[in-house]
């Protein structure tokens, strides 16, 4: 426990209640009163000592005059004492105790004989006696009475200090009270902010899910189409032996599956609950990646066209929020075009000019719909404002767009003409940060080169069989373990392996990530590739730095990732 910690605790305690501040102030007051009393006592003792010293000086001076009856000298000394207003009475007594000379300024006269034994305080007077002696022979005594300072004078002396002290105490008390109230208010504010942040987080997620919900119908519809293509293609495949026809059917099935995979991947990424985290990104690329989702989910009678400039400046925004914003605007555009139409999404650089002080990147989303009536223009960004019927829209779409643009330092504008269509402009400030480097795709994949052994840890029988088959097709020796434990056992018994490919979610005590860690611990040079269909798991694998295969994946992707992992590892002997 150090002093700083104690001080902090004291301040916290002070903040809790104003009584402590007042308590400290009172304590100060009491302490200073005690100090004043002590000082006063000290002063009194000092004053007595001072008078005693003066009496002794007088006694020492009077030895000769008193011994030899020199009245003149005695009177001279007494006159000298009389000159000081401090002394009320001074008496000189002979050896026999009778009064020789002296004066009494006021009040009672000098005692006829000196009976004072020791210094005393009588009311406002200090009375002191001293022996007159020389060489050990007593020659007489002196009596000195000196006035102490009156109460009124002393009070006057202390008054100034007392006023300052009381003011200081008041100040401490007031500051304590003020600090306590401010810190209470601050605590309330902090709690409120935390609550609001939570609510905003929930609202963002709700807005995302709202957009998702709007799209789900379209996506489901599209999925049915894809499944239709796949199932009918397979059926036809069984009935025909014409190789050209079979190839065409297989191509169709593959394309349908690839589209489906891309769509689910986008939906998963989109729905992931993630904190707001801006990153520097290429808007053109990001919008293009939305193409599948937009085209397949809006409606068949709506065409989506892109007009993206090639050399767009980078911007720094939260990517998922950008997706949601564009989807929200696209959904509004779709609903404004019940009879079909076209959505044109453009992105261009807009250099600083005139009122606009910064370089901006402008995204425009133009539809050929019904347009927005001028009287409604002001309201469209308000939360829960909607023109849609109950059950179709929540009115949160454009409010998300507005909130997102504001938090990104950008702005949003709407141009609309009733009957002609609406254009929404999103303006984002250009980022001074460079785009993060993306690893160049390694296209030097060549199946003939690889004959390494691959250990596949996968609990799903069908997936495992297919993956092993694909690996063999790519020229690898593949062996499967049904769990992490089994994979470790195989690794020990029948190694060496060039690479381990593991599913992330597996039954048993160890999951894929645990297995990967265990393998790295045992054989740091053995590369591990993880595979999963869950976006959350994918994120954690990426965070740990393991190469990742997102299910479903093609043989080409598999070959590429395994090949890269092998090349990164030192050469392994072929079994």
């Amino acid at each position, binding site marked *: 426990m150090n002093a700083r910690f104690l001080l902090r605790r004291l301040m916290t305690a002070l903040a809790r209640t104003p009584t402590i501040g007042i308590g400290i102030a009172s304590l100060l007051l009491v302490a200073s009163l005690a100090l004043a009393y002590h000082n006063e006592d000290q002063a009194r003792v000092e004053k007595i000592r001072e008078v005693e010293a003066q009496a002794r000086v007088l006694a020492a001076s009077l030895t*000769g*005059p008193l011994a*030899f009856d020199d009245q003149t000298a005695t009177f001279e000394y007494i006159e000298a004492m009389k000159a000081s207003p401090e002394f009320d009475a001074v008496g000189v007594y002979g050896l026999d105790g009778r009064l020789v000379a002296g004066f009494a300024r006021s009040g009672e006269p000098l005692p006829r004989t000196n009976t004072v034994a020791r210094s005393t305080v009588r009311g406002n007077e200090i009375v002191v006696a001293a022996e007159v002696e*020389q*060489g050990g*022979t007593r020659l007489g005594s002196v009596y000195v009475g000196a006035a102490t300072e009156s109460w009124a004078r002393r009070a006057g002396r202390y008054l100034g200090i007392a006023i300052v002290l009381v003011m200081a105490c008041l100040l401490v008390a007031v500051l304590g009270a003020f600090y306590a109230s401010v810190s209470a208010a601050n605590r309330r504010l902090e709690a409120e902010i935390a609550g609001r942040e939570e609510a905003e987080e929930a609202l963002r997620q709700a807005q995302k899910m709202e957009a998702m919900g709007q799209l789900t119908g379209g996506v489901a519809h599209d999925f049915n189409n894809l499944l239709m293509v796949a199932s009918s293609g397979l059926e036809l495949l069984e009935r025909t032996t014409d190789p050209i026809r079979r190839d065409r059917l297989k191509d169709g099935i593959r394309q349908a599956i690839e589209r489906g995979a891309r769509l689910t991947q986008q939906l998963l990424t989109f729905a992931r609950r993630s904190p707001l985290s801006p990153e520097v990104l290429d808007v053109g690329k990001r919008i293009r990646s939305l193409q599948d989702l937009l085209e397949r989910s809006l409606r068949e009678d709506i065409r989506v066209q892109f007009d993206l400039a090639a050399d767009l400046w980078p911007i720094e925004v939260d990517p998922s929020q950008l997706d949601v914003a564009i989807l929200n605007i696209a959904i509004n555009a779709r609903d404004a075009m019940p009879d079909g139409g076209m959505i044109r999404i453009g992105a261009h650089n807009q250099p600083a000019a005139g009122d606009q002080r910064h370089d901006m990147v402008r995204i425009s989303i133009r539809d050929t719909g019904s347009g927005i009536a001028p009287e409604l223009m002001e309201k469209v960004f308000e939360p829960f404002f909607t023109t849609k019927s109950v059950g179709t829209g929540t009115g949160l779409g454009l409010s998300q767009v507005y909130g997102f643009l504001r938090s990104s330092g950008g702005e949003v504008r709407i141009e609309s003409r009733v009957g002609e269509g609406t254009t929404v402009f999103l303006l984002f400030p250009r980022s001074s940060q460079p785009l993060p480097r993306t690893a160049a795709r390694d296209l030097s994949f060549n199946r003939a080169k690889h004959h390494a052994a691959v250990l596949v840890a996968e609990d799903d029988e069908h997936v495992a069989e297919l993956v092993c088959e694909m690996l063999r097709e790519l020229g690898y020796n593949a062996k499967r373990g049904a769990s992490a434990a089994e994979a470790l056992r195989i690794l020990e018994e029948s190694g060496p392996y060039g690479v381990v490919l593991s599913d992330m979610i597996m039954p048993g005590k160890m999951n894929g990530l645990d297995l990967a860690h265990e393998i790295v611990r045992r054989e740091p040079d053995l590369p591990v590739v993880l595979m999963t269909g869950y976006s959350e798991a994918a994120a954690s694998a990426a965070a740990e730095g393991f190469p990742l295969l997102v299910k479903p994946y093609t043989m080409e992707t598999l070959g590429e990732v395994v090949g890269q992992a092998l090349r990164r590892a030192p050469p392994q002997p072929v079994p």
Partner: protein
Amino acid sequence: MAHVIRSIALLTLLAAVPGGSRAEPPIEYAVKASYLYKFAPFVQWPAAAFAGPSAPLIICIAGQDPFGHMLDDAVRGQRVNGHPFEVRHVDSVRPSMPCHILYAGGGAAEALQAVASAPVLTVTDGGQGGGIIQFVTVQGHVRFAINQAAAAGNGIEISSKLLGLAVKVTR
């Protein structure tokens, strides 16, 4: 006060005794007797002058004794630096005699000679000169003159407080 009155009465009686050279006012001798021992605290003798820390301080009266028992009364019970007083009446003075204060009365000039350069404070009455301290009468009051040179010659020191009260100091 009482003993002064008694002394005065006694002195008056003594003065009436025939054979006294001249009748001294008795009050004068009462005062002188009191002064005689009061000189002691203002005088510093060499340490060797006393046999011990409580050895008596001896006042010798040589020649004519004008004090009678007034001096004995005055010193009774008094001490100076721990030394009690002792009064001796001597006929003749020898240097070996342990006197600290010597009052040489009338006709004791040889006594003064005897203690010259010995650590003795010699006291005489004004008219009879020669003592370190000589009583004089100024405006009816008993005062004294001090021969500091003689004191130094005898190896005794006299306090400046006493010197300050003397009517005359011979250096």
